[in-house]
Protein backbone atom coordinates (compact mmCIF):
# COMPACT_ATOMS: atom_id res chain seq x y z
CA UNK A 1 0.00 0.00 0.00
CA UNK A 2 1.38 3.40 -0.91
CA UNK A 3 1.45 6.07 1.78
CA UNK A 4 -1.95 7.57 2.44
CA UNK A 5 -1.77 11.02 3.97
CA UNK A 6 -4.69 13.14 5.09
CA UNK A 7 -4.56 16.83 5.97
CA UNK A 8 -7.20 18.82 7.77
CA UNK A 9 -8.33 20.80 10.77
CA UNK A 10 -9.14 19.37 14.20
CA UNK A 11 -12.60 19.76 15.64
CA UNK A 12 -12.17 18.97 19.31
CA UNK A 13 -14.79 17.37 21.53
CA UNK A 14 -14.55 16.04 25.08
CA UNK A 15 -14.71 12.66 26.83
CA UNK A 16 -17.57 10.15 26.82
CA UNK A 17 -19.29 11.28 23.63
CA UNK A 18 -22.02 8.62 23.43
CA UNK A 19 -23.83 7.53 20.29
CA UNK A 20 -26.89 9.17 21.90
CA UNK A 21 -24.95 12.46 21.68
CA UNK A 22 -23.70 11.73 18.16
CA UNK A 23 -27.16 11.05 16.82
CA UNK A 24 -29.98 11.06 19.41
CA UNK A 25 -32.73 8.45 19.49
CA UNK A 26 -35.31 11.20 19.16
CA UNK A 27 -34.30 11.41 15.48
CA UNK A 28 -34.85 7.69 14.85
CA UNK A 29 -37.66 8.60 12.44
CA UNK A 30 -34.99 10.13 10.16
CA UNK A 31 -32.82 7.02 10.00
CA UNK A 32 -34.15 6.13 6.55
CA UNK A 33 -33.44 9.71 5.40
CA UNK A 34 -29.73 10.00 6.05
CA UNK A 35 -29.17 13.50 4.61
CA UNK A 36 -31.79 14.88 7.02
CA UNK A 37 -30.43 12.79 9.89
CA UNK A 38 -26.89 14.09 9.28
CA UNK A 39 -28.04 17.68 9.90
CA UNK A 40 -28.37 16.72 13.59
CA UNK A 41 -24.93 15.12 13.97
CA UNK A 42 -23.51 15.84 17.44
CA UNK A 43 -25.94 18.70 18.06
CA UNK A 44 -26.37 17.83 21.75
CA UNK A 45 -22.58 17.72 22.28
CA UNK A 46 -21.71 20.80 20.21
CA UNK A 47 -24.54 22.74 18.54
CA UNK A 48 -22.04 24.43 16.19
CA UNK A 49 -20.51 21.17 14.98
CA UNK A 50 -22.35 20.72 11.68
CA UNK A 51 -22.02 24.39 10.71
CA UNK A 52 -18.28 24.56 11.33
CA UNK A 53 -17.13 21.21 9.94
CA UNK A 54 -15.46 21.40 6.51
CA UNK A 55 -14.90 18.38 4.25
CA UNK A 56 -11.67 16.66 5.27
CA UNK A 57 -11.72 17.86 8.89
CA UNK A 58 -10.84 15.48 11.73
CA UNK A 59 -13.03 14.76 14.72
CA UNK A 60 -10.78 14.73 17.79
CA UNK A 61 -12.16 13.42 21.08
CA UNK A 62 -11.02 12.25 24.50
CA UNK A 63 -11.82 9.00 26.31
CA UNK A 64 -14.38 6.36 25.30
CA UNK A 65 -15.66 8.01 22.15
CA UNK A 66 -18.81 6.41 20.72
CA UNK A 67 -19.91 4.51 23.80
CA UNK A 68 -23.44 3.15 23.97
CA UNK A 69 -25.81 2.09 21.25
CA UNK A 70 -24.65 0.03 18.27
CA UNK A 71 -26.37 2.41 15.83
CA UNK A 72 -24.09 2.56 12.78
CA UNK A 73 -25.86 5.79 11.93
CA UNK A 74 -23.34 7.41 14.29
CA UNK A 75 -20.28 6.94 12.04
CA UNK A 76 -22.53 7.30 8.98
CA UNK A 77 -23.53 10.89 9.88
CA UNK A 78 -20.00 11.77 10.99
CA UNK A 79 -18.79 10.67 7.54
CA UNK A 80 -21.64 12.43 5.74
CA UNK A 81 -20.83 15.83 7.26
CA UNK A 82 -17.29 15.50 5.88
CA UNK A 83 -15.12 14.13 8.70
CA UNK A 84 -12.26 12.16 7.14
CA UNK A 85 -10.85 10.50 10.30
CA UNK A 86 -11.58 10.18 14.01
CA UNK A 87 -8.85 10.58 16.62
CA UNK A 88 -9.44 9.76 20.26
CA UNK A 89 -7.64 8.60 23.40
CA UNK A 90 -9.98 5.59 23.49
CA UNK A 91 -12.96 4.41 21.49
CA UNK A 92 -15.82 2.10 22.44
CA UNK A 93 -15.70 -1.30 20.80
CA UNK A 94 -18.83 -1.32 18.65
CA UNK A 95 -18.31 2.22 17.39
CA UNK A 96 -14.70 1.41 16.47
CA UNK A 97 -15.80 -1.50 14.31
CA UNK A 98 -18.72 0.46 12.82
CA UNK A 99 -16.50 3.39 11.83
CA UNK A 100 -14.01 1.08 10.09
CA UNK A 101 -16.95 -0.67 8.40
CA UNK A 102 -18.01 2.73 7.08
CA UNK A 103 -14.49 3.36 5.79
CA UNK A 104 -13.72 6.03 8.39
CA UNK A 105 -10.20 5.67 9.87
CA UNK A 106 -10.07 5.69 13.68
CA UNK A 107 -6.74 6.52 15.31
CA UNK A 108 -6.00 6.06 18.99
CA UNK A 109 -3.50 8.59 20.29
CA UNK A 110 -2.85 11.20 22.97
CA UNK A 111 -5.41 13.76 21.82
CA UNK A 112 -4.57 16.03 24.79
CA UNK A 113 -1.82 17.25 22.47
CA UNK A 114 -4.38 18.50 19.94
CA UNK A 115 -6.43 21.68 20.33
CA UNK A 116 -9.55 22.75 18.53
CA UNK A 117 -8.61 24.26 15.18
CA UNK A 118 -5.11 22.74 15.01
CA UNK A 119 -3.95 21.70 11.54
CA UNK A 120 -3.08 18.01 11.41
CA UNK A 121 -1.43 15.67 8.97
CA UNK A 122 -2.17 11.98 9.34
CA UNK A 123 -0.09 9.28 7.73
CA UNK A 124 -2.46 6.31 7.75
CA UNK A 125 0.19 3.90 6.55
CA UNK A 126 2.50 4.23 9.55
CA UNK A 127 -0.09 5.61 11.98
CA UNK A 128 1.64 8.93 12.68
CA UNK A 129 -0.28 12.12 13.38
CA UNK A 130 1.67 15.35 12.97
CA UNK A 131 0.22 18.43 14.61
CA UNK A 132 1.30 21.05 12.10
CA UNK A 133 0.21 23.83 14.47
CA UNK A 134 2.26 22.71 17.50
CA UNK A 135 4.84 20.49 15.80
CA UNK A 136 3.99 17.49 18.01
CA UNK A 137 4.18 14.01 16.50
CA UNK A 138 1.79 11.38 17.88
CA UNK A 139 1.99 7.68 17.20
CA UNK A 140 -1.18 5.58 17.01
CA UNK A 141 -1.83 1.92 17.70
CA UNK A 142 -2.15 -0.52 14.81
CA UNK A 143 -5.43 -2.19 13.88
CA UNK A 144 -5.60 -5.91 12.96
CA UNK A 145 -4.73 -6.58 9.28
CA UNK A 146 -8.34 -7.56 8.53
CA UNK A 147 -9.53 -4.13 9.67
CA UNK A 148 -6.84 -2.40 7.59
CA UNK A 149 -8.01 -4.38 4.58
CA UNK A 150 -11.65 -3.38 5.20
CA UNK A 151 -10.58 0.26 5.55
CA UNK A 152 -8.52 0.03 2.39
CA UNK A 153 -11.60 -1.04 0.43
CA UNK A 154 -13.62 1.85 1.86
CA UNK A 155 -15.66 -0.19 4.31
CA UNK A 156 -17.11 -3.63 4.97
CA UNK A 157 -19.72 -3.63 2.19
CA UNK A 158 -17.22 -2.82 -0.60
CA UNK A 159 -14.79 -5.28 1.00
CA UNK A 160 -17.36 -8.09 0.92
CA UNK A 161 -18.42 -7.15 -2.62
CA UNK A 162 -14.79 -7.61 -3.67
CA UNK A 163 -13.73 -10.67 -1.66
CA UNK A 164 -17.14 -12.37 -1.10
CA UNK A 165 -15.84 -13.56 2.27
CA UNK A 166 -13.53 -12.64 5.16
CA UNK A 167 -9.87 -13.17 4.33
CA UNK A 168 -7.69 -13.31 7.41
CA UNK A 169 -4.24 -13.98 8.83
CA UNK A 170 -2.06 -16.17 6.63
CA UNK A 171 -4.41 -15.81 3.67
CA UNK A 172 -4.63 -12.02 3.90
CA UNK A 173 -2.65 -10.25 1.24
CA UNK A 174 0.47 -8.78 2.75
CA UNK A 175 1.03 -5.31 1.42
Amino acid at each position, binding site marked *: MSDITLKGKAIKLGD*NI*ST*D*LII*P*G*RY*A*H*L*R*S*NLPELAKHALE*DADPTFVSRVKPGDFLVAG*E*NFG*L*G*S*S*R*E*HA*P*VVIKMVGISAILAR*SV*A*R*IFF*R*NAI*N*QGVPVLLCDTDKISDGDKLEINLTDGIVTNLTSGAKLSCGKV*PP*LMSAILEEG*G*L*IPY*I*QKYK*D*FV*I*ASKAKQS
Partner: protein
Amino acid sequence: MGKTLAEKILTAKSKTDAKAGDIVIANVDLAFVQDTTGPLTVRQFKESGFRKIAEPERTVIFLDHAAPSAARQLSNDHVLLRRFAKETGCYIYEVGDGVCHQLVAEHFAKPGDIIVGSDSHTVTAGALGAFATGMGSSDVAVALALGKTWFRVPETFFINLRGTFSKGVYAKDLILYLIGQMGADGATYKALEFGGEALAHITMSQRLTIANMAVEAGAKVGLFPSDEVTQGFLTTQGRSDSYRPLYPDADAHYERVISLNIAELEPMVSLPLTVDNVFPVGKAKGIIIQQVFIGTCTNGRLEDLAVAASILQDKKRFPDTRLLVAPASRQVLTQAIDNGYIRALVEAGATILPPGCAACLGLHQGVLGDGEVCLSTANRNFRGRMGNPEATIYLASSATAAASAIRGEITDPREAM
Protein backbone atom coordinates in the same frame (compact mmCIF):
# COMPACT_ATOMS: atom_id res chain seq x y z
CA MET B 1 -3.10 -23.39 29.27
CA GLY B 2 -6.83 -23.76 29.89
CA LYS B 3 -9.54 -21.73 28.27
CA THR B 4 -11.97 -19.08 29.44
CA LEU B 5 -15.64 -19.34 28.47
CA ALA B 6 -15.07 -16.93 25.58
CA GLU B 7 -12.09 -18.94 24.31
CA LYS B 8 -14.01 -22.21 24.64
CA ILE B 9 -17.00 -20.99 22.65
CA LEU B 10 -14.90 -19.32 19.95
CA THR B 11 -12.66 -22.41 19.69
CA ALA B 12 -15.69 -24.63 19.08
CA LYS B 13 -17.33 -22.26 16.60
CA SER B 14 -14.22 -21.27 14.66
CA LYS B 15 -12.72 -24.77 14.61
CA THR B 16 -9.38 -23.24 15.59
CA ASP B 17 -7.47 -23.13 18.86
CA ALA B 18 -8.83 -19.68 19.78
CA LYS B 19 -6.75 -17.73 22.29
CA ALA B 20 -7.12 -14.18 23.52
CA GLY B 21 -5.84 -11.77 20.89
CA ASP B 22 -6.46 -14.10 17.92
CA ILE B 23 -8.68 -13.08 15.03
CA VAL B 24 -11.14 -15.86 14.19
CA ILE B 25 -14.04 -16.43 11.85
CA ALA B 26 -16.94 -18.18 13.52
CA ASN B 27 -20.32 -19.47 12.44
CA VAL B 28 -23.25 -17.58 13.87
CA ASP B 29 -26.10 -19.46 15.60
CA LEU B 30 -28.46 -16.50 15.66
CA ALA B 31 -28.37 -13.11 13.94
CA PHE B 32 -30.97 -10.46 14.61
CA VAL B 33 -31.88 -6.85 14.00
CA GLN B 34 -34.38 -4.48 15.59
CA ASP B 35 -36.47 -1.78 14.06
CA THR B 36 -34.13 1.20 14.48
CA THR B 37 -31.02 -0.55 13.12
CA GLY B 38 -32.70 -3.11 10.87
CA PRO B 39 -33.60 -0.83 7.95
CA LEU B 40 -29.93 0.15 7.45
CA THR B 41 -28.98 -3.54 7.74
CA VAL B 42 -31.51 -4.45 5.04
CA ARG B 43 -30.26 -1.69 2.74
CA GLN B 44 -26.64 -2.76 3.22
CA PHE B 45 -27.56 -6.40 2.66
CA LYS B 46 -29.16 -5.48 -0.65
CA GLU B 47 -26.41 -3.02 -1.58
CA SER B 48 -23.89 -5.84 -1.18
CA GLY B 49 -25.76 -7.76 -3.86
CA PHE B 50 -27.02 -10.44 -1.48
CA ARG B 51 -30.46 -11.91 -2.10
CA LYS B 52 -30.66 -14.82 0.31
CA ILE B 53 -30.09 -15.14 4.04
CA ALA B 54 -27.69 -17.99 4.86
CA GLU B 55 -29.84 -19.34 7.71
CA PRO B 56 -33.40 -17.92 7.65
CA GLU B 57 -34.47 -20.10 10.58
CA ARG B 58 -31.62 -18.57 12.62
CA THR B 59 -32.42 -14.97 11.68
CA VAL B 60 -34.90 -12.76 13.50
CA ILE B 61 -36.33 -9.28 13.10
CA PHE B 62 -37.78 -7.62 16.20
CA LEU B 63 -40.13 -4.64 16.10
CA ASP B 64 -39.59 -3.33 19.62
CA HIS B 65 -37.87 0.06 19.76
CA ALA B 66 -40.69 2.08 18.19
CA ALA B 67 -43.58 -0.16 19.01
CA PRO B 68 -46.28 0.76 18.31
CA SER B 69 -44.77 3.29 15.91
CA ALA B 70 -44.90 6.95 16.90
CA ALA B 71 -44.28 8.40 13.42
CA ARG B 72 -45.02 7.78 9.78
CA GLN B 73 -41.34 7.29 8.93
CA LEU B 74 -40.94 4.64 11.65
CA SER B 75 -44.10 2.91 10.40
CA ASN B 76 -42.54 2.80 6.94
CA ASP B 77 -39.38 1.28 8.44
CA HIS B 78 -41.62 -1.43 9.93
CA VAL B 79 -43.18 -1.99 6.49
CA LEU B 80 -39.68 -2.41 5.02
CA LEU B 81 -38.72 -4.95 7.69
CA ARG B 82 -41.95 -6.95 7.38
CA ARG B 83 -41.43 -7.15 3.62
CA PHE B 84 -37.82 -8.29 4.11
CA ALA B 85 -39.01 -11.03 6.49
CA LYS B 86 -41.49 -12.26 3.84
CA GLU B 87 -38.86 -12.13 1.09
CA THR B 88 -36.21 -14.02 3.03
CA GLY B 89 -38.25 -16.35 5.22
CA CYS B 90 -36.71 -15.19 8.50
CA TYR B 91 -38.66 -14.87 11.74
CA ILE B 92 -40.30 -11.61 12.73
CA TYR B 93 -41.58 -10.64 16.18
CA GLU B 94 -44.28 -8.02 16.01
CA VAL B 95 -45.15 -4.85 17.89
CA GLY B 96 -46.14 -5.85 21.42
CA ASP B 97 -44.21 -9.12 21.52
CA GLY B 98 -41.45 -7.64 23.63
CA VAL B 99 -37.85 -6.43 23.74
CA CYS B 100 -35.51 -8.32 21.41
CA HIS B 101 -33.10 -9.39 24.17
CA GLN B 102 -35.85 -10.82 26.36
CA LEU B 103 -37.30 -12.75 23.40
CA VAL B 104 -33.84 -14.05 22.47
CA ALA B 105 -33.44 -15.32 26.05
CA GLU B 106 -36.92 -16.88 26.12
CA HIS B 107 -36.89 -18.55 22.71
CA PHE B 108 -33.43 -18.80 21.14
CA ALA B 109 -30.24 -18.46 23.19
CA LYS B 110 -28.48 -21.56 24.46
CA PRO B 111 -25.12 -22.33 26.06
CA GLY B 112 -22.24 -22.23 23.59
CA ASP B 113 -24.10 -20.24 20.92
CA ILE B 114 -22.69 -17.32 18.99
CA ILE B 115 -25.28 -14.58 18.70
CA VAL B 116 -24.88 -11.25 16.91
CA GLY B 117 -27.48 -8.51 16.97
CA SER B 118 -27.55 -4.97 15.70
CA ASP B 119 -28.13 -3.72 19.22
CA SER B 120 -25.52 -3.12 21.90
CA HIS B 121 -27.46 -4.99 24.59
CA THR B 122 -27.21 -8.25 22.62
CA VAL B 123 -24.77 -9.14 25.43
CA THR B 124 -27.85 -10.01 27.52
CA ALA B 125 -27.87 -13.59 26.20
CA GLY B 126 -24.49 -14.15 27.88
CA ALA B 127 -26.62 -15.04 30.91
CA LEU B 128 -27.38 -18.32 29.13
CA GLY B 129 -23.77 -18.96 28.22
CA ALA B 130 -24.05 -17.58 24.69
CA PHE B 131 -21.21 -15.53 23.22
CA ALA B 132 -23.61 -12.75 22.32
CA THR B 133 -22.47 -9.34 21.19
CA GLY B 134 -23.78 -6.18 19.60
CA MET B 135 -22.62 -5.07 16.19
CA GLY B 136 -23.53 -2.43 13.67
CA SER B 137 -25.74 -2.79 10.65
CA SER B 138 -22.93 -3.61 8.18
CA ASP B 139 -21.55 -6.44 10.30
CA VAL B 140 -24.99 -7.94 10.85
CA ALA B 141 -25.85 -7.58 7.15
CA VAL B 142 -22.78 -9.63 6.28
CA ALA B 143 -23.51 -12.14 9.07
CA LEU B 144 -27.02 -12.60 7.62
CA ALA B 145 -25.59 -13.28 4.19
CA LEU B 146 -22.60 -15.45 5.09
CA GLY B 147 -23.84 -17.07 8.30
CA LYS B 148 -20.55 -16.12 9.95
CA THR B 149 -18.54 -13.17 11.18
CA TRP B 150 -15.08 -12.34 12.49
CA PHE B 151 -14.06 -11.75 16.09
CA ARG B 152 -10.99 -10.72 17.97
CA VAL B 153 -10.89 -13.26 20.81
CA PRO B 154 -11.22 -11.12 23.95
CA GLU B 155 -9.13 -11.23 27.10
CA THR B 156 -11.32 -12.01 30.11
CA PHE B 157 -12.01 -10.36 33.46
CA PHE B 158 -13.25 -12.98 35.93
CA ILE B 159 -15.85 -11.70 38.37
CA ASN B 160 -15.76 -14.08 41.34
CA LEU B 161 -18.95 -13.72 43.40
CA ARG B 162 -19.67 -15.14 46.84
CA GLY B 163 -22.43 -14.63 49.40
CA THR B 164 -26.09 -13.85 48.87
CA PHE B 165 -27.86 -10.54 48.33
CA SER B 166 -29.00 -8.67 51.44
CA LYS B 167 -32.59 -7.49 51.76
CA GLY B 168 -33.38 -4.75 49.25
CA VAL B 169 -30.32 -5.50 47.10
CA TYR B 170 -30.63 -7.02 43.63
CA ALA B 171 -28.65 -7.94 40.53
CA LYS B 172 -28.99 -4.36 39.25
CA ASP B 173 -27.17 -3.07 42.33
CA LEU B 174 -24.39 -5.61 41.74
CA ILE B 175 -23.81 -4.71 38.10
CA LEU B 176 -24.04 -0.97 38.80
CA TYR B 177 -21.47 -1.41 41.57
CA LEU B 178 -19.14 -3.32 39.23
CA ILE B 179 -19.48 -0.73 36.47
CA GLY B 180 -18.72 1.98 39.03
CA GLN B 181 -15.58 0.07 40.03
CA MET B 182 -14.40 -0.71 36.50
CA GLY B 183 -15.47 2.50 34.78
CA ALA B 184 -17.52 2.89 31.62
CA ASP B 185 -14.48 1.94 29.53
CA GLY B 186 -12.79 -0.28 32.11
CA ALA B 187 -13.57 -3.48 30.22
CA THR B 188 -13.42 -2.19 26.64
CA TYR B 189 -12.80 -5.08 24.19
CA LYS B 190 -12.82 -7.56 27.12
CA ALA B 191 -15.07 -10.44 28.09
CA LEU B 192 -16.61 -10.36 31.55
CA GLU B 193 -17.01 -13.87 32.94
CA PHE B 194 -19.08 -14.37 36.07
CA GLY B 195 -18.45 -17.24 38.46
CA GLY B 196 -18.12 -18.25 42.09
CA GLU B 197 -20.31 -19.88 44.68
CA ALA B 198 -22.89 -17.08 44.64
CA LEU B 199 -24.06 -18.12 41.17
CA ALA B 200 -26.12 -21.00 42.56
CA HIS B 201 -28.48 -18.40 44.11
CA ILE B 202 -28.50 -15.94 41.22
CA THR B 203 -31.61 -16.57 39.11
CA MET B 204 -31.76 -16.40 35.32
CA SER B 205 -33.72 -13.15 35.57
CA GLN B 206 -30.90 -11.65 37.65
CA ARG B 207 -28.22 -13.07 35.34
CA LEU B 208 -29.91 -11.40 32.37
CA THR B 209 -29.81 -8.06 34.21
CA ILE B 210 -26.10 -8.50 34.94
CA ALA B 211 -25.09 -9.67 31.45
CA ASN B 212 -27.22 -6.93 29.87
CA MET B 213 -25.07 -4.19 31.38
CA ALA B 214 -21.67 -5.73 30.59
CA VAL B 215 -21.53 -3.37 27.60
CA GLU B 216 -21.84 -0.38 29.95
CA ALA B 217 -18.31 -1.21 31.15
CA GLY B 218 -17.28 -1.43 27.49
CA ALA B 219 -17.22 -5.25 27.43
CA LYS B 220 -17.78 -7.32 24.33
CA VAL B 221 -19.64 -10.08 26.20
CA GLY B 222 -20.84 -10.83 29.72
CA LEU B 223 -20.74 -14.60 30.13
CA PHE B 224 -22.16 -17.02 32.67
CA PRO B 225 -21.32 -20.73 32.76
CA SER B 226 -24.27 -23.07 32.38
CA ASP B 227 -25.57 -24.87 35.46
CA GLU B 228 -28.79 -26.02 37.16
CA VAL B 229 -30.17 -22.48 36.94
CA THR B 230 -29.63 -22.48 33.17
CA GLN B 231 -31.13 -25.94 32.83
CA GLY B 232 -34.13 -24.98 34.96
CA PHE B 233 -34.80 -21.86 32.89
CA LEU B 234 -34.55 -23.70 29.57
CA THR B 235 -36.87 -26.43 30.87
CA THR B 236 -39.44 -23.84 31.99
CA GLN B 237 -39.27 -22.35 28.50
CA GLY B 238 -39.90 -25.79 26.95
CA ARG B 239 -36.35 -25.90 25.61
CA SER B 240 -34.70 -28.50 27.86
CA ASP B 241 -32.98 -30.04 24.82
CA SER B 242 -31.10 -26.74 24.34
CA TYR B 243 -29.14 -27.29 27.55
CA ARG B 244 -25.52 -28.30 27.48
CA PRO B 245 -22.83 -28.03 30.13
CA LEU B 246 -20.46 -25.10 29.63
CA TYR B 247 -17.79 -23.97 32.07
CA PRO B 248 -14.29 -22.52 31.90
CA ASP B 249 -11.19 -24.64 32.41
CA ALA B 250 -9.81 -24.58 35.97
CA ASP B 251 -6.47 -23.26 34.65
CA ALA B 252 -7.95 -20.62 32.34
CA HIS B 253 -5.95 -17.41 32.13
CA TYR B 254 -7.74 -14.26 33.28
CA GLU B 255 -6.36 -10.81 32.66
CA ARG B 256 -7.97 -9.59 35.87
CA VAL B 257 -9.93 -11.14 38.73
CA ILE B 258 -12.45 -9.13 40.72
CA SER B 259 -13.74 -10.86 43.87
CA LEU B 260 -16.82 -9.63 45.63
CA ASN B 261 -18.97 -10.67 48.57
CA ILE B 262 -22.38 -9.62 47.31
CA ALA B 263 -23.77 -9.68 50.87
CA GLU B 264 -21.86 -6.45 51.48
CA LEU B 265 -23.60 -4.57 48.67
CA GLU B 266 -26.13 -1.81 49.27
CA PRO B 267 -28.82 -0.55 46.88
CA MET B 268 -26.95 1.50 44.28
CA VAL B 269 -27.86 4.34 41.96
CA SER B 270 -26.17 5.63 38.83
CA LEU B 271 -26.21 9.41 38.66
CA PRO B 272 -26.24 11.45 35.43
CA LEU B 273 -24.57 11.56 32.91
CA THR B 274 -22.56 8.35 32.67
CA VAL B 275 -23.49 4.86 33.82
CA ASP B 276 -20.30 4.50 35.87
CA ASN B 277 -21.24 7.46 38.08
CA VAL B 278 -22.41 4.98 40.73
CA PHE B 279 -23.02 5.55 44.45
CA PRO B 280 -25.00 3.94 47.26
CA VAL B 281 -28.61 5.12 47.01
CA GLY B 282 -28.14 7.42 50.00
CA LYS B 283 -26.09 9.78 47.80
CA ALA B 284 -29.19 10.54 45.69
CA LYS B 285 -31.75 10.28 48.48
CA GLY B 286 -34.39 12.99 48.36
CA ILE B 287 -33.88 13.99 44.72
CA ILE B 288 -37.33 14.91 43.40
CA ILE B 289 -38.43 12.84 40.41
CA GLN B 290 -41.22 13.51 37.93
CA GLN B 291 -41.14 10.08 36.30
CA VAL B 292 -40.34 6.51 37.30
CA PHE B 293 -39.82 3.98 34.53
CA ILE B 294 -39.80 0.25 35.32
CA GLY B 295 -39.06 -2.01 32.37
CA THR B 296 -36.54 -2.62 29.54
CA CYS B 297 -34.17 -5.45 28.68
CA THR B 298 -32.40 -4.67 31.95
CA ASN B 299 -35.25 -4.85 34.46
CA GLY B 300 -38.58 -5.59 32.78
CA ARG B 301 -38.86 -9.25 33.77
CA LEU B 302 -41.37 -11.03 35.99
CA GLU B 303 -39.12 -10.86 39.07
CA ASP B 304 -38.79 -7.10 38.59
CA LEU B 305 -42.53 -6.62 38.32
CA ALA B 306 -43.03 -8.91 41.34
CA VAL B 307 -40.78 -6.84 43.58
CA ALA B 308 -42.29 -3.58 42.31
CA ALA B 309 -45.81 -4.89 42.88
CA SER B 310 -44.94 -6.08 46.39
CA ILE B 311 -43.65 -2.62 47.31
CA LEU B 312 -46.53 -0.76 45.63
CA GLN B 313 -49.30 -3.13 46.81
CA ASP B 314 -52.05 -1.06 48.49
CA LYS B 315 -49.93 2.09 48.09
CA LYS B 316 -50.21 5.00 45.68
CA ARG B 317 -47.60 6.67 43.57
CA PHE B 318 -46.76 10.22 44.65
CA PRO B 319 -49.29 12.49 42.88
CA ASP B 320 -46.63 14.52 41.03
CA THR B 321 -44.68 11.45 39.90
CA ARG B 322 -45.69 9.46 36.85
CA LEU B 323 -45.09 5.70 37.04
CA LEU B 324 -44.54 3.89 33.73
CA VAL B 325 -44.23 0.10 33.60
CA ALA B 326 -43.29 -1.81 30.44
CA PRO B 327 -43.08 -5.61 30.76
CA ALA B 328 -40.14 -6.97 28.74
CA SER B 329 -42.25 -9.46 26.78
CA ARG B 330 -45.75 -10.76 26.15
CA GLN B 331 -44.90 -13.79 28.29
CA VAL B 332 -43.83 -11.52 31.16
CA LEU B 333 -47.03 -9.50 30.78
CA THR B 334 -49.35 -12.50 30.82
CA GLN B 335 -47.59 -14.01 33.83
CA ALA B 336 -47.69 -10.65 35.62
CA ILE B 337 -51.44 -10.52 34.94
CA ASP B 338 -51.92 -14.08 36.23
CA ASN B 339 -49.93 -13.32 39.39
CA GLY B 340 -51.85 -10.13 40.15
CA TYR B 341 -48.82 -7.84 39.72
CA ILE B 342 -50.43 -5.78 36.99
CA ARG B 343 -53.54 -5.09 39.10
CA ALA B 344 -51.38 -4.04 42.06
CA LEU B 345 -49.32 -1.72 39.86
CA VAL B 346 -52.32 -0.21 38.08
CA GLU B 347 -54.13 0.37 41.38
CA ALA B 348 -50.99 2.10 42.67
CA GLY B 349 -51.25 4.53 39.75
CA ALA B 350 -48.96 2.91 37.17
CA THR B 351 -49.42 3.33 33.43
CA ILE B 352 -48.81 -0.03 31.76
CA LEU B 353 -47.01 0.28 28.42
CA PRO B 354 -46.90 -2.44 25.77
CA PRO B 355 -44.05 -4.97 25.95
CA GLY B 356 -41.11 -3.34 24.15
CA CYS B 357 -38.40 -0.75 24.72
CA ALA B 358 -40.96 1.95 25.63
CA ALA B 359 -39.40 5.10 27.13
CA CYS B 360 -35.81 3.83 27.28
CA LEU B 361 -34.32 5.52 24.24
CA GLY B 362 -36.37 8.66 23.83
CA LEU B 363 -38.51 7.70 20.86
CA HIS B 364 -41.92 7.62 22.49
CA GLN B 365 -43.98 6.49 25.47
CA GLY B 366 -42.52 8.73 28.16
CA VAL B 367 -40.25 11.39 26.65
CA LEU B 368 -39.13 13.74 29.45
CA GLY B 369 -39.80 17.48 29.64
CA ASP B 370 -37.19 20.21 30.10
CA GLY B 371 -35.68 20.05 33.58
CA GLU B 372 -37.48 16.83 34.46
CA VAL B 373 -35.84 13.99 36.33
CA CYS B 374 -36.54 10.29 35.74
CA LEU B 375 -35.57 7.33 37.87
CA SER B 376 -35.31 4.45 35.44
CA THR B 377 -34.52 0.74 35.65
CA ALA B 378 -32.93 0.92 32.18
CA ASN B 379 -29.23 0.80 31.41
CA ARG B 380 -28.27 4.27 30.16
CA ASN B 381 -28.41 7.77 31.61
CA PHE B 382 -26.55 9.65 28.87
CA ARG B 383 -27.56 13.19 28.04
CA GLY B 384 -30.56 13.11 25.71
CA ARG B 385 -31.14 9.39 26.14
CA MET B 386 -34.83 9.70 27.00
CA GLY B 387 -35.60 12.16 24.24
CA ASN B 388 -34.59 15.44 25.86
CA PRO B 389 -31.06 16.75 26.45
CA GLU B 390 -32.48 19.11 29.10
CA ALA B 391 -33.72 16.22 31.26
CA THR B 392 -31.74 13.94 33.60
CA ILE B 393 -31.87 10.22 34.31
CA TYR B 394 -30.91 8.17 37.37
CA LEU B 395 -30.59 4.38 37.14
CA ALA B 396 -31.51 1.89 39.85
CA SER B 397 -33.22 -1.43 40.59
CA SER B 398 -36.95 -1.98 40.22
CA ALA B 399 -37.23 -2.04 44.03
CA THR B 400 -35.59 1.37 44.34
CA ALA B 401 -37.78 2.62 41.48
CA ALA B 402 -40.99 1.38 43.12
CA ALA B 403 -40.08 2.78 46.55
CA SER B 404 -39.18 6.12 44.96
CA ALA B 405 -42.49 6.29 43.06
CA ILE B 406 -44.36 6.27 46.38
CA ARG B 407 -42.45 9.23 47.82
CA GLY B 408 -41.81 11.12 44.60
CA GLU B 409 -38.12 11.26 45.46
CA ILE B 410 -35.22 8.84 45.26
CA THR B 411 -35.68 6.48 48.19
CA ASP B 412 -33.76 3.61 49.74
CA PRO B 413 -35.99 0.59 49.00
CA ARG B 414 -35.18 -0.93 52.39
CA GLU B 415 -37.33 1.82 53.93
CA ALA B 416 -40.35 0.57 51.97
CA MET B 417 -40.00 -3.16 52.57
